């Protein structure tokens, strides 16, 4: 039996040392990573609703389920109510939508009347130089701003995509259309709740 132990002990020692090392590094970097994520989210929310100074996350799961039912094929991650000096001025809908290289996290900003105030991309892994044009070409995201309240999927599809990266453009368009549907379905009635 001891010959087997001679084999097992070194592996065990390496594992223990590796585990301690890694857990130490993790506990060192974890807060930094969390902070990075929070900063990134903060930036993307500010990008779509610049005037808002606070974003209240809607925890009510019933509302989120209702929104998710309407938002298919896009997945709702969070919904925020934007307030300025305590007064609600709009909504920010954070969704995950399928692009060419995989899921893209997109934030769509709506004002109280449901018209789009801005669209920003939190993360994506599209082909650099091709799919990433949805972010680098300024006109593409700006074209979504100013859609009238209660806009339908048709209005969104009417807007043009980037040649050569249709699948990435569709990812963004699906996200904006989903936000429109969620507003029409749920956020519209929730208007009075926050007063």
């Amino acid at each position: 039996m001891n010959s087997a132990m001679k084999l097992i002990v070194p592996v065990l020692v390496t594992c223990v040392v590796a585990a301690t090392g890694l857990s130490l590094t993790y506990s060192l970097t974890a807060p930094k990573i969390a902070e990075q994520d929070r900063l990134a989210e903060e930036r993307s929310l500010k990008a779509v609703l610049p005037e808002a100074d606070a974003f209240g996350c809607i925890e009510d799961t019933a509302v989120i389920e209702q929104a998710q039912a309407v938002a298919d094929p896009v997945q709702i991650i969070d919904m925020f109510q934007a307030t300025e000096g305590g007064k609600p001025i709009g909504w920010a809908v954070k969704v995950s939508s399928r692009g060419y290289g995989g899921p893209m996290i997109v934030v769509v900003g709506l004002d109280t009347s449901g018209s789009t105030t801005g669209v920003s991309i939190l993360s994506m892994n599209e082909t650099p130089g091709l799919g990433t044009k949805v972010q680098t070409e300024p006109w593409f995201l700006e074209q979504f701003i100013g859609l009238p309240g209660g806009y339908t999927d048709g209005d969104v599809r009417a807007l043009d995509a980037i040649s050569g990266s249709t699948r990435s453009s569709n990812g963004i368009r699906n996200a904006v259309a989903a936000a429109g549907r969620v507003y029409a379905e749920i956020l519209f009635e929730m208007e009075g709740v926050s007063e």
Partner: protein
Amino acid sequence: MSTVSQLALLFIGAALVNNILLTRFIGLCPFFGVSGNMETSVGMSLAVVFVMMMASSATWAVWEYVLAPLGVGEFLYIPAFILIIASLVQFVEMYLRKASPILYRAMGIYLPLITTNCAVLATATEAAKPGFFKMNIALGASLSLGEALIYTLGVSVGFGFALVTFAALRERLDLAPVSRLFKGSPIAFITAGLLSLAYVGMSGWFGL
């Protein structure tokens, strides 16, 4: 468990549309090393299918019953998974050599190659760790065991298919008149590029 059609889509997506070798470029070392001739490629493909299926089920089980409950998966998944795959490969090699020498002779020599095969680790991680799975199918946050195995089967079949087609091309290459600068590996790279153009052309099928 999702519907049968979704599983079929998962399989086709993994094998052809997002072929791990020619559209995602994972596992190129054996791809160029082994594809010199046909027998080695077929032997390697069999070994890869066999080991990938076991690796994915092992990593899935370890994530589900060891890493997730303890909540340490986030930073321990790399050492844990690769340790499992390496030991699994060594175990299979020993078992095959004892149980069936013929199978060992056909497949055994490639087993050590598989430990350093990126495709096996990539697929095992995608099958086991939630959030790693990037394909365009709306499955749950993490794959169920059935979905994970179907996905791995798709990927390994795709791997074998790409490897064998490339081996056939390379055997024809030896006879072709190629300038001395491009003889050997450069012409193999160019052929692989052309082959991957065909596979990349398949992207977007079935909405995957």
